[in-house]
């Protein structure tokens, strides 16, 4: 006991010394610069966005010549760890792009500056995107771009199998898969992940479509609800009937080759696949379609994407707000779509010519009814548990029993 007390005392002393050192270095919260002052705004953006934000910032300088935007591109694979270490070292930038499922963690870290809801209105954005960064009435991130899931399928092969109409319900989807299976060229009727990292993204739409949610009203996991069991049962059908491969795909598996060859004629995925199919399987142009995910009780998909967050430690909050406003304005969002093919989170941007003329209606429809992943600090762990459950489900596990097991495991994680 005494030893613990001693080390606690030692730690406390070190803590005090450190915090004194830190406050001596940083000039504290008082020194906020106005948006008109000459200053440099540091921004971290991930992947391709990192390269493009710098370009779009030039346009921002036409109206805000005093704010120099310094963009640091960060790779997606290291971004999470880099941000967490920066938070630990108190070295965060002013503004950053944050993956939508990371919101909960960073809220928990207490490093995010609440969004000024007078400047940014919930009504302007897709509801699920906005709700994903809301906790206890405070909003911590402004939705920047969104992505969602739709169903890709080979229309030519569907016709060959005797199905002329696009699938709209779960029953349609199952019937289409069974029709596909009868074709000689088919290896697997449906590319439906049997567990493995990220497979929760394919199951969540079933949950939302059945009317379920990840958390109940009290903020406790609701993964053994009747709706969740329905979703698991529906998901399992494809494995039970031999329509989908019952083992996880090897890391790095790309469905496009099989889709192009016709051996896997149906898969659910995000908007980026439109371009990828056009690039990698040009021979099937006009022979495939993307439709909203077939629905159970209600239409549903999930929403993903990125938010823009300002960090509490920033001394350039006013400038950060101006830049965020610029990036989420309908005009910039439309430019951004043309540049990167990322879907605008701001609904007004969808009226801009760039999007009006593009073939994106299917995504707009999906986005309006999409469910959101709540901002949980332990989301990564919950997601992992869902992945594990799906793997067991594909091997023939009982949906109700697995749902119960999943509920027990996740209850301990979410506080």
């Amino acid at each position: 006991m005494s030893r613990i007390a001693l080390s606690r005392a030692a730690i406390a002393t070190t803590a005090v010394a450190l915090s004194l050192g830190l406050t001596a270095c940083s000039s504290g919260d008082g020194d906020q610069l106005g948006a008109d002052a000459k200053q440099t705004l540091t921004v971290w953006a991930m992947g391709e966005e990192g390269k493009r934000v710098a370009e779009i910032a030039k346009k921002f300088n036409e109206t805000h010549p005093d704010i120099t935007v310094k963009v640091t591109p960060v790779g997606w694979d290291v971004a999470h760890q880099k941000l967490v270490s920066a938070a630990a070292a108190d070295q965060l930038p002013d503004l950053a792009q944050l993956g939508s499922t990371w919101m909960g963690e960073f809220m928990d870290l207490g490093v995010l500056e609440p969004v000024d809801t007078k400047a940014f209105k919930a009504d302007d954005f897709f509801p699920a995107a906005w709700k994903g960064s809301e906790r206890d009435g405070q909003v911590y991130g402004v939705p920047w771009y969104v992505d969602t899931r739709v169903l890709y399928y080979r229309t030519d092969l569907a016709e060959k199998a005797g199905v002329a109409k696009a699938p709209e319900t779960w029953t349609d989807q199952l019937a289409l898969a069974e029709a596909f299976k009868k074709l000689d060229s088919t290896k697997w009727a449906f590319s439906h992940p049997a567990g493995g990292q990220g497979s929760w993204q394919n199951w969540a739409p079933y949950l939302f479509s059945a009317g379920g949610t990840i958390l109940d009203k009290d903020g406790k996991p609701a993964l053994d609800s009747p709706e969740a069991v329905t979703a698991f049962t529906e998901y399992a059908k494809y494995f039970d009937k031999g329509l989908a491969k019952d083992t996880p795909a090897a890391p790095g598996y790309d469905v496009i080759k099989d889709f192009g060859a016709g051996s896997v004629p149906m898969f659910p995925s995000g908007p980026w696949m439109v371009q990828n199919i056009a690039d990698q399987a040009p021979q099937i142009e006009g022979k495939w379609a993307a439709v909203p995910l077939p629905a159970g009780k209600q239409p549903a998909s999930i929403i993903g994407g990125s938010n823009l967050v300002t960090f509490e430690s920033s001394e350039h909050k006013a400038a950060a707000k101006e830049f965020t406003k610029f990036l989420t304005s309908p005009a910039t969002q439309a430019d951004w779509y043309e540049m990167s093919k990322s879907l605008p989170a701001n609904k007004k941007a969808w009226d801009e010519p760039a999007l009006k003329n593009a073939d994106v209606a299917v995504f707009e429809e999906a986005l309006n009814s999409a469910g959101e992943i709540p901002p949980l600090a332990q989301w990564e762990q919950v997601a992992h548990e869902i992945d594990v459950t799906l793997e067991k489900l594909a091997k023939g596990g009982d949906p109700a029993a697995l749902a119960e097991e999943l509920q027990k495991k996740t209850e301990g994680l979410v506080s």
Partner: protein
Amino acid sequence: MSGTNSAERPASSGRAAAGTTDTPAESAVTGKAAARPLRKAAGAGTRTTSGGTPLRPDRLSRHNLSGWLYSTPFLAFFVTFMAVPILATLVMSFTDFGLRNVTNPFDAEFVGLENYSELLGDEQFLRALFNTGYFVVLGVPLTIGCGLLAAVLLNSGIERFRTFFRVGFYAPVVTAIVAVAVVWRFVLDPSEGLIAGLAAQVGLTAPDFLASESLAMPSLIAMAVWRNLGTSMVLFLAGLQAIPTEVREAAKLDGAGAFQEFRRITVPLLRPTMLYVTVMTTIGFLNVFEEPFVMTNGGPSDSTLTVSLLMYREGFNFFNMGYASSMAYTLFVIILAVTLLQMRLLKDKTK
């Protein structure tokens, strides 16, 4: 060591022809005799120049100081990047350090041995422990066996392509794991892979190695053996080349066949190398991380989940640093115990 061996063995073998044995024996003796006075002279030389006994402590401390100075860069590096983190991990393993503590580390609470007791009841950890054991028990003997075999082959017969084979066996050791993964995925791919192609030639269907719960781990072991046998081969090769040819020649003259020569000469004289290779390979295999990380990510159904992989997941994906630290120390204790056991078993026999 080698001097005494070459001097004694030919003498004890009575049938040895005088002409062949005398020269090496003599030269060994003269070599020794020449070395001894030389060393003495050098020692005496330094002593006299430093000025005798009174100055000795002073000279020593100056010696020490420059020694410390020279090792400062290494020590600074070691303390910052090794000692401090190792100690911090130990402290952390007794706390509930989690995501929230990243910004306020001193809020972490001491929980005593709670993490460790939780580990004992953690099904996933026990599974990972079992998988790691499986990996070691199958992988280490295979790596050492194949490495020794390759070394013996390279050391004896094939003169012409020696360099080619040496490079061939060693190349996987220095190849980046990502490149290795690409190659092995091609080998194991169930539809277009090398094995599937060969199987198809004879009318068989290859299984989906990495997606099968029973085959995934053996596949990773095969990959690890291929990757690591080069290291043990190089060490064995060095050990083999240190065995003096006279000993072999003597054995041959005594009528020993190739197998007998291997058993009576090569194996006993390789024992120190064997100890080193065994200990190092076992430590490496107990820490197995890269193979499952790049090939299967622990799946299917946790069948390739190893302790290091689980530790990485808990620590860096979920930020349960306290819990992950307790795993690290548990693994450390296991490695220490296994190493001590091996040192004991393999060392006693050499005496």
